[in-house]
């Protein structure tokens, strides 16, 4: 048994023992169907970027140290004109209703803002007097701004926010249990919808709402991908194959593969995330590409022979290439596991496993369907693809130097583009573009400085140390350093509270602290271990270059002022995004090297590793540098992921091409003749499958997630460049004497 026949063993078995193979396949599909009932969706946004790094660990340690997880929901109220007296009265009523709602702990709003006790004009007074007069509120807003207090009203006085801290949840049996905040969110929605619809509109924002909003869009997307992707696959297969029976042979294995891929999630107990939601569609198009290669070969090979012999021949000649494409794509997915990010690791496992399972499903179901459907001689040769004409083949083989020079020039140009890329990650891009939460998040970020929290922590040797003059001075210094680094952001600590109470040089009294929400105090000071924290309200770290700069300044200032650590989701995002991109880059490099070595070893042709690198790196380099034009040079983790997946799929065409070239050489053809046949015969299948894959990935353009659209767009660009590279560059390279077999 040769290494080639080993790779197609499942198909050979299905051909020789169709009944047993059919039973095994049906049994496996039944198990998959049952497991689908456990399919779950990820709603924890922190998992999008968190890993086991020190930043994630410190954040988790802080949250665990708090008596309850600080859950917060933001309500943004907006008006087309500046708020008048009636609006302010309404906003106060909204605040009261929110504060009285079940499950709400405290609400920071225009109704709760108070002047410092030391204020000359309004000592200790609320921002909103009992009798509201727009002129007076305006004066008070000016006064509070002058006093250096960040008010929850925007400068244009057309928007305001209500920051709602939820009650500590006691019903979760442990901190790891997910607390269901949906009843409180529903109550809040009811309150704001009762007040909305007139002069003022209300919307919800906040970390806690990103997850649920994401899930709804994920579910919509998953259904849309599968329905539209399936319909597109059917129509394109019909166009390419020209016969319903052939379409069935090509399409059904691909659908079964996608179905198995979906069940991999539930069998492994991995939730569907923004990153991996595309996997079943990806597997569908990959499996379809393989089965189209097989079906085209079946259609066109020796129509005079018996069907069983023709199927066996297609399996023997195309099957090994299908196996190798599955292997290299699987290697590419597995390389994603180099990331420390759990979601990416899950995706690596799901991707690698799904691709291998898809290969098995295609290889077993193809011979079964071919025999069951029955491809008679009457239906063959009805539709000939003439996309790669003899003239084109001749031109490609004549213009070797020109094509190589052009390939080199494009590569160099694209490499220049790589220097303009920089790592970037925006969490809100994990939300659908249509999301009202995303829109509200942006209002909060632009008008109020953001709702994310950075905790800068000072450690003390014991709980009493903070009350000493030296201990208190440390906290005051840290607070001042952060305020200077981020003058536009809200900074909160015991020091800012003491300043507000009029005794900046002394810690707050117990009685003063007793007036504040307990969950807030717990975030600011801890007895065991003794520590004090400064909270800075910030937008996403990479919202803009300016926000990134400020957050770097906050971290630097905090550490310079002797903070033991700075902790928070923005900190994780800032550090992890760069780290994930670096890890994915290493993974991609390793995937490239391993894949070409595996192919060189399999075909026992060492120099093939070098030959394959150029046409397969070119699509990656061109696609990556296209980000300079399409994404402002921002290289996101999703973009890196797309490049890795693109490599795994783009190399498939090279494998089919090289496989055909080797088969033709083994039949005794010379190099140019073998290349000519490969360009003409494999070329049409490559064009057809590239069209199929691009159309399949085209469904991502329907996605409400811009990350998914970018992912799909990058893949499509990579596949098109890969097709040109494989049709034009690869034959030119193989014609070079140094690379000839």
């Amino acid at each position, binding site marked *: 048994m040769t290494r080639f026949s080993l790779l197609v063993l499942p198909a050979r078995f299905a051909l020789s023992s169709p009944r047993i193979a059919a039973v095994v396949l049906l049994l496996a599909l039944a198990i998959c169907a049952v497991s689908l009932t456990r399919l779950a969706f990820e709603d924890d946004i922190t998992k999008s970027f968190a890993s086991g790094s020190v930043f994630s660990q410190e954040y988790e340690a802080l949250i665990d140290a708090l008596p309850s997880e600080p859950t917060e929901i933001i309500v943004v109220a907006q008006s087309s004109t500046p708020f008048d007296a009636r609006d302010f009265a309404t906003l106060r009523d909204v605040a009261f209703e929110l504060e009285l709602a079940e499950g709400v702990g*405290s609400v920071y709003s225009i109704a709760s803002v108070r002047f410092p006790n030391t204020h000359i004009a309004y000592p200790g007074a609320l921002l909103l007097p009992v009798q509201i007069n727009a002129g007076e509120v305006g004066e008070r807003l000016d006064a509070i701004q002058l006093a250096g207090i960040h008010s929850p009203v925007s400068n244009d006085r057309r928007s305001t926010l209500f920051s709602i801290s939820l009650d500590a949840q006691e019903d979760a049996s442990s901190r790891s249990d997910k607390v269901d905040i949906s009843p409180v969110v529903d109550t809040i929605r009811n309150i704001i919808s009762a007040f909305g619809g007139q002069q003022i509109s209300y919307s919800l924002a906040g970390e806690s709402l990103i997850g649920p909003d994401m899930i709804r869009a994920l579910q919509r997307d998953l259904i849309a991908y599968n329905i539209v992707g399936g319909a597109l696959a059917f129509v394109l297969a019909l166009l390419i194959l020209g016969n319903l029976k052939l379409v069935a042979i090509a399409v059904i294995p691909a659908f079964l593969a996608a179905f198995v891929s979906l069940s991999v999630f539930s069998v492994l107990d991995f939730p569907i995330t923004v990153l991996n939601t595309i996997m079943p569609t990806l597997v569908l198009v990959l499996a379809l590409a393989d089965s189209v290669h097989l079906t085209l070969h079946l259609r066109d090979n020796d129509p005079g022979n018996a069907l069983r012999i023709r199927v066996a021949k297609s399996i023997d000649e195309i099957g090994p290439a299908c196996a190798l494409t599955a292997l290299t794509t699987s290697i590419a997915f597995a390389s994603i596991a180099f990331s420390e990010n759990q979601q990416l690791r899950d995706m690596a496992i799901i991707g690698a496993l799904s691709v291998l399972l898809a290969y098995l499903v295609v290889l077993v179901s193809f011979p079964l369907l071919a025999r069951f459907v029955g491809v008679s001689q009457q239906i063959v040769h009805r539709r000939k693809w003439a996309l790669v004409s003899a003239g084109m083949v001749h031109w490609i083989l004549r213009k070797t130097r020109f094509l190589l020079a052009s390939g080199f020039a494009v590569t160099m140009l694209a490499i220049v583009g790589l220097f303009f890329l920089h790592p970037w990650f925006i969490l809100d891009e994990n939300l659908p573009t249509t999301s009202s939460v995303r829109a509200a998040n942006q209002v909060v970020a632009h008008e109020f400085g953001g709702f994310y929290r950075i905790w800068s922590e000072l450690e003390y040797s014991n709980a009493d140390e903070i009350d000493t003059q030296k201990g208190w001075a440390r906290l005051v210094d840290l607070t001042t350093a952060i305020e200077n680094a981020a003058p536009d952001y809200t900074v909160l600590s015991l020091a800012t509270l003491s300043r507000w109470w009029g005794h900046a040089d002394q810690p707050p009294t117990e009685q003063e602290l007793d007036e504040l929400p307990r969950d807030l105090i717990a975030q600011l000071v801890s007895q065991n271990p003794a520590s004090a924290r400064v909270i800075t309200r910030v937008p996403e770290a990479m919202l803009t270059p300016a926000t990134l700069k400020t957050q770097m300044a906050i971290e630097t200032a905090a550490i310079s002022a002797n903070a033991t650590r700075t902790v928070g989701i923005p900190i994780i995002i800032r550090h992890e995004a760069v780290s994930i991109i670096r890890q994915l880059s290493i993974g991609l490099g390793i995937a490239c090297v391993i894949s070409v070595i595996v192919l060189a070893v399999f075909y026992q042709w060492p120099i093939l590793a070098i030959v394959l690198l150029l046409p397969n790196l070119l699509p990656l380099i061109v696609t990556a540098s296209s980000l300079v034009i399409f994404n402002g040079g921002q290289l996101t983790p999703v973009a890196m992921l797309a490049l890795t997946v693109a490599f795994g799929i783009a190399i498939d065409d090279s494998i089919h091409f090289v496989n055909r070239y080797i088969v033709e050489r083994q039949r005794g053809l010379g190099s140019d003749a073998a290349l000519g046949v490969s360009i003409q015969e494999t070329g049409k299948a490559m064009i057809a499958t590239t069209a199929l894959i691009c159309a399949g990935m085209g469904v991502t353009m329907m996605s409400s997630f811009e990350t998914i659209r970018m992912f799909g767009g990058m893949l499509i660009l990579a596949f098109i460049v890969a097709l040109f590279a494989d049709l034009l560059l690869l034959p030119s390279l193989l014609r070079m004497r140094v690379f000839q077999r």
Partner: protein
Amino acid sequence: MIRTVFAISILAAAIQLPDTALAGSILERAAGKWSGTGWARRDANAPRELVKCRLSAKFVKKQNRLSVSGKCTGGGRSVRLSGRFVDEGAGDFSGKWSTGSRLGADQMTGRQNGNKIRFNWQSRNQKTGKVTGYFTQWNVQKSKLSVATGLRDNSAPLMVEINFTR
């Protein structure tokens, strides 16, 4: 201090006094859900600030006891309240209240007089240790209840006034 004044005033307000013509226990008729709106001062000389409350009261007939729970908010503070009031007979009442975890921090005694009832209670300033005496008085109409709280020695204006309806 304001939290104490606030809490006791509100809890006391949950007890709806009957019209003299109405039959049955005062506490029994106080059972149900209540919404209140009014004002309070942070301290005796501070300006008025709006407050709103929602309370739920449940009567246990066997023990002549009214259990009250709810939430009040105003001036940026929310107070979660719970308390128990017992009809001791002969127009006398006793009660305990709590805010959050401070269960049983303060006790109060009351005396009924027609449509009015006056609770007396006292609170200690944690910073100075000074003890201050307060009163909370209700004036009950047929369909609404007004509650007022002030210093027992009347040395300052009223501190809380809230009107409740069912």
